[in-house]
């Protein structure tokens, strides 16, 4: 399934002209401009990586390394896409490696890795501070297969466009759509089973 078949416009993934200009100048030697890209994206990428690796400190390291790595291969950046999308693919590889290494070392149980919790389990006061939806959301995310959880996170938390998600995970848009569809169905069912409702209540199944 290619982009033409998906019926989705790729316009959302087109690079920001301002950003493209910065990158062109960076490649011409204006290294200091790179910090603008860091400022613009480090926080957003950190949230995405925290969802992925389940540990906010580790995610911060992944983000920092991803920016350095992106710098090193900046000549390979395709200006037709957003810098963030490309940066994400770099960070994602590092996050996956980090998860794999952790698994190999057996530092954490497999279930915890699979769950990719947003933060480590914490105390009751913290739990009280958080809302019911947040807790249910986290529990339900943990039930999704990793590939579905990733597209669900990218779509509903990171706010990526379909075409960007496709680029970011290296899958056709049709795959993204079906994966997301399945993830949403599971999340609907799971959240409902935990008593979470959302306005329109009845749902479409």
């Amino acid at each position, binding site marked *: *399934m290619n982009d033409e078949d*998906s*019926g*989705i*416009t790729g316009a*959302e993934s087109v690079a920001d002209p301002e950003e493209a200009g910065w990158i062109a100048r*960076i490649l011409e*030697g204006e*290294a*200091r401009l*790179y*910090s603008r890209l*860091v400022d613009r994206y*480090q926080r957003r990428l950190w*949230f995405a990586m*925290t969802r992925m690796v389940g540990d906010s*400190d580790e995610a*911060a390291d992944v*983000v*920092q390394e991803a*920016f*350095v*790595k992106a*710098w*090193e*291969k900046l*000549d390979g950046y395709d200006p037709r896409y957003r810098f963030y999308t490309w940066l994400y693919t770099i960070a994602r*590889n590092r996050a996956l490696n980090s998860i794999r290494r952790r698994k190999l070392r057996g530092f954490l149980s497999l279930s915890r890795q699979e769950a990719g919790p*947003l933060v480590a389990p914490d105390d009751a006061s913290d739990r009280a501070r*958080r*809302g019911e*939806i*947040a807790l*249910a*959301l*986290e529990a339900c995310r943990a039930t999704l*297969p*990793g*590939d579905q959880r990733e597209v669900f996170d990218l*779509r*509903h*938390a990171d706010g990526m*466009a*379909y075409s960007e998600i496709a680029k970011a995970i*290296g899958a056709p848009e*049709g*795959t993204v*759509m*079906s994966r*997301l*569809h399945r993830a*949403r169905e599971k999340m609907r069912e799971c*959240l409902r089973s935990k008593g*979470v409702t*959302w*306005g*329109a*209540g009845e*749902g*479409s199944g």
Partner: protein
Amino acid sequence: MIDEGTDGGHVEAWLDAWRTGELEPERAVAVERHLETCARCRAAWADLRAFAAAVEAGYREREAGLPEPDWARRRAAVVERTSGRRAPRASWYVRWAPQAAIVVIAAVAIGVLVEQGVRGPDEAGRALAPTAERAERRAENLVADEADGGSPPEETLEEESRAEAIQDAPRPAARDARADGAVEAEAPAPAAPAEAFEKAAPAALADRFRREARAALAERDSAAAREALALWADSVDPAPLPPAERERLEAIADSLAALLASLER
């Protein structure tokens, strides 16, 4: 798959992309027209919108409590490692330096053999040993780097064992570029058996090409050796290297290329 939910003209499958204005104009118009007349899809739309809002609120709430890193410090760490240097410019030579180095080393080894008039596989093996070992070590490191820091296919999240069995096929175009620039290989090598190896594990693939390269070197079949070494290099993804390592490899490649040129003269 994406036609799910569009049976009988229903548009549920398109609603999420429509929600964020990502549908092609004709499709968007079709969705809007359909919603005017279809209660089921209108209900689905209301549900999706509410679901997305609830989920987004859930994420916000959950993540609001995360202890954020010291962003200024993180930014400074990146800037420290990227400022005062030029970003790399597009250049096949720099990008392919690791593989180029391997191929150049092999070519030099072949040149040495020819120069010394080495006879017989045993003698060839002895003469080549140090160079071949070095090239092998480098390739092994690349394989290890790949296993550790490469680009896993997207399936990795779901099923790692499957991911391990899938690897990009060798890249004939890239090999050609390298051969032209780095060793000026004579005749074009036979087409890479890419399809046949698509499913092989990268380590096994690299190992196979390495054995082939060794055998070809032992038989002083330089064309076959170059081909096998190029395939060997190609079976390893060009993992980007730290700048210092890249510079070192570039220097090695430079001196070896010069040596090769003098040998061939």
